[in-house]
């Protein structure tokens, strides 16, 4: 690894490989990044989750140096890099469309960086061939060395793009929706492989995705980007059970969210007064969130226990998804309420369409934002 080769670094202990301080970027006056603060730990897998248009690609391009930030600081391995041209940053980039060199073969694509980089190019053809061979083995492309990059599948292109970057041994690799162009089957398999490959190389991956399940499955740390700001940065487990705001909860796609206001011990929501019991988190905008899988569906005449919250809704439809069933209800104000029931808990129940049911959850399971 080339890490630590900069003179400024001698004697400094760096734990955060990348630090972003108040990074701003606007396009024609419209802000895409509105003050991003983040620190990425060395040798870790970081996912960056955000809805489309939240500025994920812009952030990656600013870090890589393809775009100049309007303000803020970017520190990479302790060195300030805003203003440094991309080829002097030592940060790898894997493009969503792969951006392979179409006129070069698989092996030539992978060898390109080694042979042509400005700093420490490898001129010995044998040395290049050996490193390319190792990398081809690592990403599982053996046998395809001499193929044109247009004669390989999407998953294989993905591997070439990754190998081409990793062979130059950057200390950090930025991946822009790397699995977005792959079909569902391959996506699941590549998730595991990406993690394995990263562990073997010991580099930091910053993996951008719009899929909450991908972000939670891949990242040691998950950054949530919302309207140009980091809304939360934490590990996957904490993010899933303790989103920092209603917006983050919404991206996670597993919370029913009510807007309203807290008054004393109840939350005044459009579907009625919900008794409060759990912790309250300051987030700026009051909201009430209950996770899909914390809700029980009971017959309408069943009474709620003292520590429970109960609302009524009419059943619409169910959807099987592997080990769980997701049931959809409409509330009195017309909104959809989703309940996830794990099949191991109980045999699937048949609900009657348009019939009313009681939806019940424990007070302390709800997240309350004030």
């Amino acid at each position, binding site marked *: 690894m080339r890490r630590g080769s900069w003179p400024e670094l001698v004697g400094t202990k760096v734990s955060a490989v990348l630090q972003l301080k108040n990074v701003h970027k606007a396009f024609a006056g419209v802000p895409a990044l509105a003050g991003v603060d983040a620190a990425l730990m060395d040798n870790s897998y970081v996912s960056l989750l955000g809805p489309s248009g939240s500025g994920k690609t812009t952030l990656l391009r600013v870090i890589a*140096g*393809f775009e100049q930030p309007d303000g803020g600081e970017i520190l990479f391995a302790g060195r300030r890099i805003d203003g440094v*041209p*991309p*080829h002097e940053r030592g940060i*790898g980039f894997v493009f969503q469309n*792969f951006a392979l060199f*179409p006129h070069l073969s698989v092996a030539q694509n992978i060898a390109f960086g080694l042979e042509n*980089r400005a700093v420490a190019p490898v001129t010995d053809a044998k040395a290049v061939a050996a490193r390319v061979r190792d990398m081809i083995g690592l990403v599982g492309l053996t046998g395809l060395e001499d193929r044109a990059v247009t004669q390989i599948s999407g998953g294989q292109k993905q591997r070439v793009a990754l190998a*081409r970057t990793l062979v130059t041994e950057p200390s950090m690799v930025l991946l822009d929706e790397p699995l977005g162009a792959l079909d569902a089957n391959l996506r699941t398999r590549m998730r595991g492989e990406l993690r394995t490959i990263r562990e073997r190389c010991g580099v930091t991956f910053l993996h951008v995705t719009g899929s909450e399940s991908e972000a939670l499955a891949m990242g040691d740390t998950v950054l949530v980007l919302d309207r140009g700001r980091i809304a939360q940065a934490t590990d996957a487990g904490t993010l899933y059970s303790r989103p920092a705001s209603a917006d983050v909860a919404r991206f996670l796609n597993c919370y029913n969210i009510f807007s309203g206001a807290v008054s004393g011990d109840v939350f005044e929501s459009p579907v009625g007064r919900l008794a409060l019991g759990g912790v309250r988190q300051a987030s700026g905008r009051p909201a009430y969130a209950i996770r899909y899988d914390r809700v029980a569906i009971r017959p309408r005449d069943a009474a709620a226990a003292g520590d429970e919250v109960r609302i009524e809704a009419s059943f619409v439809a169910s959807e099987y998804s592997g080990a769980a069933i997701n049931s959809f209800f409409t509330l009195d104000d017309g909104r959809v309420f989703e309940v996830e029931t794990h099949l191991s808990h109980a045999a699937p129940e048949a609900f009657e369409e348009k019939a009313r049911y009681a939806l019940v959850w424990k007070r302390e399971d709800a997240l309350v934002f004030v």
Partner: protein
Amino acid sequence: MNASGIKLGLGLYTTLFIVFLYGPLAVLAILSFQTGPEGGPQFPIIEWSTYWYKHLFGLTPPSRIAPLPIEQALVRSLALAVMTMIVSTVLGVTAAQAFRKRFRGSGVVFYLIVLGMMVPGVLVGLGMALVANTLGVDRHWWGTAFVLHVVYTFPFAFLVMLAIFNRFDPSVEEAAWSLGVTPARTFRKITFPLIFPGVLSAMLFAFTLSYDEFSRTLFASGRDLTLPLAIYGTFSVEVHPNVFAFGVLTTLFSFALLGTYAVLMGLSVRRAKRMAIQEEA
């Protein structure tokens, strides 16, 4: 109209198009085989012969018809076309590369460049002659005329390259930079091979436009004539079929040029295809 009617119409149109395109050329080609030296540039063919071709290369016994005074003009025109091709293509590629990023005044610069192919050639030629006279600069095919040829052909090369860059995916360049490769080397190793088909087209444009440029060269080239001027000059005396023979030979030369272009293009088409497939993926 029914389908066969459309077919008939299109067929007729194509036939007419081909007749008008190749008719004059065919007449030239046929008359170039007129017998010599007594045969003239008109039908009927008295007797088929290759006399005028031999005459062109000085292989006939001396006669009252002087050999075409075009040998040096041909060399000049070829040299001028090659010079123009190189300079215009380099300028076209670099200017189009500059236009990939919006810069201040890019709109004005764009129209200034394109103006070079829009303004009437005779006027530019005359203007150049006047400027040269005023400044006391001698007019030469390799000086004043060369500048005008570049001003004229550069916009074509520029527009071709602009269209090529329009379709170019810049992320392959960014990918190379992120591997630690300098922008200059990236251009040489990645960008240039990918835009090469466009560069070939720009070269072909610049060469052919310069090779038979007439109006700009007329006033700007000074004493030593280029090929189009020399041929025109022979018309003012008396036209013999040797001009036609020469026309046939230059046409063959043009076809050879096109053939070279096609072969080189074919070699890079695979590359272009690969690029297209990758874009779709």
